């Protein structure tokens, strides 16, 4: 029962916000408007999926924001000038993510500390690559991010694709089930003969992969990079996962919900800006929206539990 609510609530909150935005700004209700409203949410959605991979195995990644910034810097410099070398660096950074996942499990280190440390490493590398803002987006990435498909804007198509593919990968495939099982009960997974280290490394590698995609998309939208470009993504991605119905423990995540959560967060910013709310209140108001949604979820899940208990009894 509660798993059905899990996806219902994010969908509902997104719909309510979208209706409010359309009411405030009817111009947004068009092909062009929807694209403007949502195109910057694509990298946030990808970063949220990356965060979800880590949260899925009961860890948390505090380095995703700086990692995406680092990837953005690599994309705007190496991937543009020497595509092979750039691709190799990005591949190496995904392997580094996998290694971090394995290390965290093998040495039983707290992920929060290791990833916080890594955030300084990625941030430092980004500053080394681009001491001052600059670089250029490779033309093909720019072309992909500004493509105008018929009928439905690129931003919406991209979000549907991300949600659909990750849903298949995490919720439908055997590997996805195993990965979620690591978060649910790692000991049981280990006793049935699977290597938890390998699985955790896999989950982190997936996080690195989606982080790389996020950085590439971001540069495609902004056309160039800045070492601090995506620092906000760390907290946005965590909020997106939770808003989308995920939980910090137990391997309970929802890829579709995570994408919707990211969209909701991006939309909340636009909504507050259309409301002409003073910036001093905006962060607080964004937080209030978050707390409101979570409070509603808590109410629902309590209700669901009672209902189930009553049924069983």
């Amino acid at each position, binding site marked *: 029962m509660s798993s059905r609510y899990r996806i219902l609530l994010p969908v509902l909150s997104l719909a309510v916000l979208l209706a409010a935005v359309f009411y405030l700004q009817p111009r947004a209700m068009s092909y062009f408007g929807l694209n403007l409203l949502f195109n910057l949410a694509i990298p946030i959605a990808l970063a949220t999926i990356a965060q979800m991979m880590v949260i899925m195995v009961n860890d948390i990644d505090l380095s995703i924001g700086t990692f995406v910034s680092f990837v953005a810097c690599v994309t705007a410099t190496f991937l543009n000038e020497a595509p092979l070398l750039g691709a190799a660096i990005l591949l190496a950074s995904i392997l580094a993510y996998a290694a971090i996942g394995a290390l965290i499990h093998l040495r039983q280190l707290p992920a929060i500390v290791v990833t916080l440390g890594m955030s300084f490493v990625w941030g430092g590398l980004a500053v080394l690559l681009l001491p001052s*803002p600059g670089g250029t987006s490779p033309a093909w990435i720019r072309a992909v991010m500004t493509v105008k498909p018929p009928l439905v804007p690129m931003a919406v198509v991209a979000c549907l694709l991300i949600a659909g593919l990750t849903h298949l990968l995490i919720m439908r495939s055997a590997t996805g089930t195993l990965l979620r099982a690591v978060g649910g009960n790692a000991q049981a997974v280990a006793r049935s003969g699977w290597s938890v280290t390998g699985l955790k490394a896999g989950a982190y590698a997936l996080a690195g992969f989606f982080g790389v995609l996020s950085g590439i998309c971001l540069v495609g939208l902004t056309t160039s990079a800045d070492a601090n470009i995506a620092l906000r993504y760390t907290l946005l991605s965590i909020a997106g996962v939770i808003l989308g119905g995920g939980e910090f423990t137990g391997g309970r995540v929802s890829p579709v919900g995570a994408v919707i959560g990211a969209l909701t967060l991006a939309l909340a910013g636009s909504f507050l800006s259309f409301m002409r709310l003073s*910036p001093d209140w905006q962060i607080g108001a964004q937080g209030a929206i978050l707390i409101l949604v979570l409070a509603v979820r808590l109410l629902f899940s309590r209700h669901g539990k009672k209902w189930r208990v009553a049924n069983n009894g």
Partner: protein
Amino acid sequence: MNSKAKLLGAAALVALALPGSAIADTADKRIALSNNYAGNSWRQAMLESWSKVGGKAVADGVAAAADAFTTSENQATEQAAQIQNMILQGYDAIVVNAASPTALNGAIKEACDAGITVVSFDGIVTEPCAWRIAVDFKEMGRQQVEYLASRLPDGGNLLEIRGLAGVFVDDEIHAGIEQGVKEFPKFKIVGSVHGDWAQDVAQKAVAGILPSLPDLAGVVTQGGDGYGAAQAIKAAGRETPIIVMGNRQDEMKWWASARDENGYETLSLSIAPGVGTLAFWVAQQILDGAEVPKDLTVPFLKVTQDTLDETLASTPVGSVANVEYSLEDAKAVIAGAK
């Protein structure tokens, strides 16, 4: 004769009506300010100037709206989203103080493609379709040394107080100072500290380096650090050298009291936060159809011995000397760049 007079009269009428019609052209245009940060006295003064000048322009019927927006966090991604929202809100011109010179280019390109005029100032952007009102920070550094050379023909030792490390403005002013020292080789920079444009940081940094320095003839600064330097030098019991100031109220107050005490003379220069209003008028001129070059330079605001009392009196406590630009100033800057 009579008909000639009539003709002249008609010509005069047309001439009178022309500026009026020029104003009417932008009466239905809406201009927005996209700002990335409001957390210091400079930005607060900038927003205040904007609402004052913009509000008056709207009341006078020069523009339909002059709304200011500040992002809740100082992040390029936030500001890019903010600019995209402005496109949706249907503004005719967007005036930007950018969080990053490059990371907003995608959003700014979107705005240009939607037919919106984009004018960046202070924090300028590199996207070619936008206008840039830049500050010649290098010249600001060079002029400090030039002023010192006019006061001290024999030269001497200089202490340099720099800004926040790694920020573009700090590098530019520093380069200007180096250029000035090359131009006037009698000066020698004997020490350099980072004051982060804050009086307390500058005071600590200067106090730390002072014991290792020889006699100082002058202190070159970046603004926001002159008062702290003066306090540190006084605490060390040294004679006060010529400290170039940066238009902050506390700096000018200290300068005025030192002048009353012992005839202390110096120069103060910085960028007026009212530069936002210059950008407003430039945007208005572009909307009006004027030919405006893409790159403009703002004059910086200098406070001299003669204008000290006047400027100090008009600067609120804890703020920075300001000047609001008018349509005529904007026209002069545009004409100067052609």
